[in-house]
């Protein structure tokens, strides 16, 4: 073979070419793999699908362990527009049980909705029943691009206490921004304990990291699921509510506007809390939640307003025991002090009328008969107490006493939206009277729980509870127990519910007032519908007939039983119910009797029948509508 040096040297050109190409490629690899990181995140975005697994929400029980709220699977049909191919629309509509028009309209809606993408799953139909779902699931393979999703919705065993239990709805924009736990479309507690104990009920979201191929098909769990996190179901809750009592109280409150609160004095646990008119909590679960919600907001009787804690009323005569307590504690009166009633309280031309005749009373009968005159003079004595330099200083002290009994500020119940009621202070009156030298006569109506005074039914019930306890109360609450989660996490009932709060009034004074209320039940204003001694119940009670500018008086009852070692304290507030004894006493005492005896005695059945059937709605301004 001939040798040609020039040609033989060309091998180096070829070798150089090979080396150059390989070096360029290695440089390119270096750029792709080492210098630029965005390929890694791109790869992850493409290949990983992090799917949230929703934990099941905590179940809610009543104090007897009866299930009140539980979870039920609901099924959504999802559609990925891009993957919808060769859809037999007629077939699909038949399976789903909808018409062609609904189908077309729904598809149009989806395409026009905000944030629409043809690549992602859109909700086509929500909350199918399991029967519908079974049909769809079976036929789903025929419809490309359609998928189903299981979600849980809340179900309610009893049609009671919608405002205590609350409901769940889609998370709002504000909360989304505030709490990173939520993502769009998550369900979050609304109203009631669902809202106030949201964090305890919601549990911990799990996640599964799935691998998907280029068609978006799921190929399995990443790394055999080692990175997945199982969801942890939320804490189950036991509420202080007694479902039977609640149901009974609600039935008594039918066709009446107002509220009823029953508290266990020894613990502050709320046994029943009714706001009337009420509604079935199931209305706010499931497919027609939105529609029902709007209807409820439009209802003239405002069923969404929790009258037990969100409405403040003049407490009327139920305020009088508190006045007596202050007077005793402050030394303005003794139990034996006799104050006159001249058909009421008179000072100059001013007269605050009283239903009673011209009698003079000591404290116990004054409470029992709810004498306006007595309590008018009582307030004058309190405010003109020599201990204090001025009426205003005495009034400041009076206000402090009231606040210590739970008035004027939120009690701190574990339900959303509680209002504070109103107890005026010096500044308020100074401003209102344009002088800081006003006289007791100017504010005399507060002595009988009228005037500026406002209280929630809860605060009134709490007063009853305080008297029942002879001087202290526990913050009323509906949470009895938080069950540990499956992963052993323990959550306690908040500390604030576990310690008694003492008022500024001594125990001995409470005995006097309790006796006054006992006499009221036996021989006083409560006696007609409230004397339950034949039933073995030693009731202590106080009526209230709260005048209000909106029409007929409100009928109020506040009481507890038995007198010693009380088991239940109740406030029943019926808007426009007339005298306290007309509705307040019967309903309140029926609830007490039901709770203590488990039944209503035959003797008292007529009261029950009457309360179950009568309506006070006609006295309400909204009635015309």
């Amino acid at each position, binding site marked *: *073979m001939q040798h040609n040096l020039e040609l033989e040297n060309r*091998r180096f050109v070829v*070798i150089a070419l090979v080396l150059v190409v390989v070096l*360029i*490629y290695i440089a390119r690899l270096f750029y*792709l*793999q080492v210098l630029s990181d965005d390929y890694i995140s791109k790869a992850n975005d493409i*290949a990983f699908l992090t799917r949230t697994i929703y934990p099941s929400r905590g179940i809610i029980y009543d104090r007897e362990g009866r299930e009140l709220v539980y979870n039920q699977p609901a099924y959504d049909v999802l559609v990925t527009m891009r993957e919808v191919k060769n859809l037999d629309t007629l077939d699909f509509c038949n399976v789903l049980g909808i018409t062609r028009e609904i189908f077309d309209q729904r598809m149009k809606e989806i395409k026009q909705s905000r944030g629409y993408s043809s690549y992602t799953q859109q909700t086509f139909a929500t909350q199918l029943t399991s029967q519908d779902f079974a049909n769809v699931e079976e036929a789903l393979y025929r419809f490309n691009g359609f998928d189903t999703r299981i979600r849980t919705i809340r179900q309610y065993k009893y049609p009671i206490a919608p405002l205590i239990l609350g409901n769940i709805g889609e998370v709002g924009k504000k909360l989304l921004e505030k709490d990173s736990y939520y993502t769009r479309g998550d369900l979050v507690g609304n109203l009631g304990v669902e809202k106030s104990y949201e964090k305890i009920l919601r549990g911990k979201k799990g996640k599964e990291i799935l691998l998907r191929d280029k068609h978006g098909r799921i190929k399995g769990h990443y790394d055999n699921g080692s990175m997945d996190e199982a969801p942890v179901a939320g804490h189950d809750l036991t509420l202080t509510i007694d479902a039977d009592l609640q149901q009974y109280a609600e039935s008594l409150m039918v066709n009446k506007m107002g509220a009823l609160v029953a508290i266990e004095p020894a613990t502050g646990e709320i046994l029943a809390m009714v706001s009337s008119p009420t509604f079935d909590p199931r209305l706010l679960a499931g497919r027609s939640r939105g529609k029902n919600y709007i209807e409820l907001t439009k209802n003239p009787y405002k069923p969404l307003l929790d009258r037990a804690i969100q409405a403040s009323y003049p407490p009327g005569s139920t305020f009088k025991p508190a006045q007596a307590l202050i007077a005793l504690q402050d030394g303005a009166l003794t139990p034996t002090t006799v104050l006159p009633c001249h058909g009421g309280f008179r000072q100059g031309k001013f007269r605050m009328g009283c239903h009673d005749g011209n009698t003079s009373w000591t404290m116990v009968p004054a409470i029992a008969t709810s004498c306006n005159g007595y309590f008018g003079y009582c307030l004058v004595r309190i405010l003109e107490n020599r201990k204090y330099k001025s009426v205003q200083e005495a009034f400041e002290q009076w206000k402090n006493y009231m606040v210590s009994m739970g008035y004027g500020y939120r009690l701190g119940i574990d339900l959303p939206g509680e209002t504070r009621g109103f107890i005026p202070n010096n500044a308020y009156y100074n401003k209102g009277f344009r002088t800081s030298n006003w006289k007791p006569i100017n504010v005399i109506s507060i002595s009988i729980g009228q005037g500026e005074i406002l209280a929630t039914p809860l605060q009134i019930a709490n007063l009853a509870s305080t008297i029942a306890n002879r001087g202290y109360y526990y913050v009323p609450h509906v949470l009895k127990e938080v069950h540990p989660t499956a992963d052993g996490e323990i959550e306690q009932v908040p500390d604030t519910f576990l310690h008694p709060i003492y008022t500024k009034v001594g125990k001995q004074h409470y005995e006097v007032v309790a006796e006054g209320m006992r006499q009221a039940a036996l021989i006083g204003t409560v006696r007609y519908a409230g004397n339950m001694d034949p039933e073995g119940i030693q009731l202590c009670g106080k009526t209230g007939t709260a005048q209000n500018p909106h029409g007929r008086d409100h009928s109020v009852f506040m009481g507890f039983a038995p007198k010693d070692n009380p088991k239940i304290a109740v406030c029943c507030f019926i808007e426009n119910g007339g005298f306290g004894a007309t509705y307040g006493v019967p309903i309140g005492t029926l609830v007490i009797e039901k709770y203590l005896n488990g039944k209503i005695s035959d003797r008292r059945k007529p009261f029950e029948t009457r309360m179950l059937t009568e309506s006070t709605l006609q006295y309400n301004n909204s009635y015309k509508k």
Partner: protein
Amino acid sequence: MLKSFDWFTALLYLVLVTIGWFAINAATYNFDDASIFDLSRFPGKQAIWFGISVLVIFVLMFIDAKTYAFWPPVLYVLVMILLAVTPYLASEKGVKGSHSWIQFGSVSIQPAEFGKFTTSLMLAWLFSQYGFKLDSLSSYLKVGIIILLPVALIILQNETGSALVYFSLILLLYRQGLPGTILWAGFSLVLVAVLGLVYGENIVLFLIPFLVIAMYFGFTDDSKSGWWALKVTVFFYAAYFLVKWFVPIPEAVLPYYRFRWIGLAISVWVGCYAIWLYLSKRVGKYLLIAACALGFVGFQYSVDYAFNKVLLSHQRGRIEVLLGLKDDPKGVGYNVNQAEIAIGSGGILGKGYLEGTQTKLSYVPEQHTDFIFCTIGEEQGFIGSSLILILYAILIIRIIMLAERQQTPFAQVYAYCVACIFFFHVAINVGMVIGLVPVIGIPLPFLSYGGSSMLSFTILLWILLKLDASRNVRY
């Protein structure tokens, strides 16, 4: 003979096949698959093909070296006939519209793969003919026919990628005496056409002066003229960019202040300068340079014109897809993008064997065949994929070294053919996967899954090893 056998290359071959087998397993690994030895799966099938390859290797080693030198014309004719009839025998479910696969029972083979070693043998045979030299028109014609016949037949099968392989043999021709200017011009034309279509005229016009100036340095002894032309070019380019970046250009002038004008002017000037040099020095090479310079410019514009006006739309579409100018629904652009993401996500050390997500989840198309390099890139990272490239470089350079130590033009030409073909396959395949070369569907030797390519590359390499082992035997 065993003493003169090149164990090193044989070892490289085994290493690559083994890596390929693992890579195929990784690329086709499925979450619920049980065994990698399952014969219904790709690694299992590849193992069978390797077994067949070993048998073939034994046969090849027992055939006398003289036989290889004697039979190429017959073999060539037979294979060309096979290639010609392939479209008619091709199975209906041809891959990607190509008609290059023939079904034999449950296996399908691609005859185009066997064109490679046949053509190589044929070229080697031609060069080994007494007195054959690559210096006359008739010699070029013969070589041209031998190379272009399979190209034409394979293009008829719609296997453009496999057809392009044969153009790599220009390196062999260069080694055997083809003037470097032509190699360079050919290289430049490809560059001009591809860059022009993909990136537009600016980049091409920018490049042309440098391509031409390189010829002054490479193919004439007149580096003085080269430096001068380079200085002029750099000066004007620099002036253009300095003005563009630092001088506020009036609004009215701005639409006309485009690189294409300066690029065109310089490109034409470089050509005219060569003509002037020819006129003053009367050396033919300058005319060749001038022709190249002006030819490049003309080619740049005519490529665009031909591409848009002469080609039919489906042909244009094919080229656009080929060059990655357009995404088809399944998306060639998508493929490359996915491949880059897969490789890029590998990082320095990779995700670990069988830990890759992109390739495993079939984001990357053809992941076990043409895009097998992705799997290695993703799972073995920069270190692993660079090592593979270096292994290939070693293999190719080793083959060139084998070629150079051959005693006969037959063995030497054949060896160069092998080197060229391997080089082309590696450069195009890896280049395509890492996004440097338009998508051309050809396999990566020994790594890609596929019986035909496995057999074909094995035959290609082991005939060389046989010839090399017998290099001291006179035949």
